[in-house]
């Protein structure tokens, strides 16, 4: 009997290890979920400012993680403003000034259109696996979903956030919640996915709330009104010439 107990004690942890995924494995599945090929989407961004709420509508075309083109459709002041991302470079066109300006350096950390997103957030390479090393901290429940809790630490110099803590839905492999930290450990941004939808095998966020932890605003809501995966995107869209059209 005693021998049986010893054997069981020896076997059980090994059996348990076999079921627990590694941080890298979880991140890979998250990346597979969120990084699509081509897609075009119409989004609504609601900025809950300290003074009032502002709603902006935009149409965007994305190819992988390197190319994206966005055009703001409303409100009137923002209408016609366009942004082009090619790799790690970002350009912005303003119809009021009829100028194309490259957003670089410290400007990247500025708020995008007054939201809790920064231009740097937009430029960010979505592949978490390439940017971070991950450690599984355990499990927690978030919005009644059973989640893996991971601690991510940047393993590249130019990562926008030195570390993150993410809650990944175990079933859908979608990061439902994120806390993003600076090198000092100071909390910079938080993100929560409040609604999701399924497209084929993929789960995608429908509504998310992003909050700049350093500001007194109430956060920015991003709602995907419509999205088309594997969309046909004209080649000319991802060019500076397209900004002025």
């Amino acid at each position: 009997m005693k021998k049986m107990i010893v054997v069981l004690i020896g076997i059980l942890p090994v059996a348990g290890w076999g079921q627990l995924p590694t941080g890298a494995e979880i991140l890979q599945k998250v990346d597979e979920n969120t990084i699509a090929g081509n897609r075009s989407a119409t989004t609504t961004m609601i900025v809950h400012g300290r003074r009032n709420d502002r709603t902006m509508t935009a149409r965007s075309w994305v190819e992988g993680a390197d190319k994206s083109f966005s055009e703001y459709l409303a409100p009137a002041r923002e209408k016609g403003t366009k942004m082009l991302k090619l790799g790690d470079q970002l350009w912005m066109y303003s119809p009021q000034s009829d100028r194309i300006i490259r957003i670089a350096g410290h400007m990247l950390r500025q708020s995008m259109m007054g939201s809790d997103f920064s231009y740097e957030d937009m430029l960010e390479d979505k592949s978490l696996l390439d940017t971070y090393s991950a450690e599984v901290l355990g499990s927690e429940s978030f919005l009644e979903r059973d989640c893996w809790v991971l601690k991510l630490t940047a393993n590249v110099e130019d990562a926008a956030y030195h570390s993150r803590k993410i809650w990944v839905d175990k079933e859908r492999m979608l990061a439902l919640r994120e806390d993003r930290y600076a090198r000092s450990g100071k909390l910079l941004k938080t993100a929560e996915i409040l609604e999701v939808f399924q497209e084929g095998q993929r789960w995608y966020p429908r509504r998310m709330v992003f909050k700049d932890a350093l500001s007194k605003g109430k956060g920015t809501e991003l709602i995907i009104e419509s999205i088309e995966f594997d969309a046909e995107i004209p080649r000319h869209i991802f060019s500076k010439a397209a900004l002025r059209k």
Partner: protein
Amino acid sequence: MMKFLINGLLRDRQRSLFPILIVAIGVWITVFMQAYIEGILGDIVDSTARFATGHVKVMSRAYAENEDQKPNDLALLGVDQIAADLQQQYPGMTWVKRIQFGGLLDIPDETGETRSQGPVVGMGVDLLSPGSSEIDILNIEKAVVTGRMPQNPGEMLISDNLARKMGVQLGEAATLLSSTMYGSMTMYNFTVVGTIRFGILGMDRGAVIADIADVQQALDMVDASGEILGYLENRVYDAERAAVVVDRFNAGYLGVEDEFAPVMGRLDELSRLSEYLAMAENFSGILVLVFVLVMSIVLWNVGLLGGLRRYGEVGIRLAIGEHKGHVYRSMIYESVFIGLVGSLIGTGLGLGSAYWLQVQGLDISSLMKNVNMMYPAVIRAEITGETYYIGFFPGLFSTVLGTALSGIGIYRRQTAQLFKELEA
């Protein structure tokens, strides 16, 4: 007795002229320095008022809490009405709206691409309204180095240093990249029509001035501004008068909980100049003390020398029965007379020279490398009520103290030795 003493002083020039001269010179310097310092202080207060705080300033409460950052997202709304109400309530005061902002100035090449780009700070002030007082308040026109003042919407002045660094020519376009009041990025085109010297190092490195209507348009701040500055009548700061205005204004919003409700502050509170001004006030006292000490020592020495000269006179007076205390007191009375006369002469001279400096001023533009907005090139003194009497403190105290110290020797005279001294 005073008449007797005065006659004695007038007849014996040697024991009055030199002390009177010393006192007059010392008082002259004291009076002039006091007026000069008042003038310098006045310039500092004036510059702070013109550039930063006005004599009073209205902001939203949220803006006021973070004022150093000039947070335009917390700017005051409905400023046209607020300014109109203030003008009606205080018609003798001047009220101006201002917006302070930061951003990038982008200079395009012929294809519209960026040729050069640099960070700037900026001021949106009323440059184009007929009768606007901002040009005079900020001394803008005199500080223009090249080009001209903005005369049309869409024109701006940039710092001369920045223009040279970025290679900007007059008439060229410049795009301001900044944040609107709601946090969006904004790009707004201006035409550079002139360059200016601000006189503040940070601003001369990279600053711009444009009409407030343009800035409001650029930053989506219609009927909004970060600040409304108020200037008292004659543009002379009076802390008590300002306090009345501030208290009355703030009382009107006492029960309002809104963090964007307006609040008014006054110059010395907003600029933290109150400690500095108090220190400067103390400086006048220190100046007086220094002169009292210095002149006392000199007059003590004069008194000792005089005592030697009047050794015989004092001896006779003691010998014929005058009390030592009486002799001592008579010398003190003499010193009071000398102090009064010297102080009167010195105050007269000091007032005269201070008045000249106040009215004419001393133009040091040839000594200054550049005339600029911040500091006018003319140094002026300022005669205040204190100037009229401050000289009498060192003038009287120093003579009395010097005589008191030197006259102590009278008490050491031995009556028994007096006749021997007389025989000698």
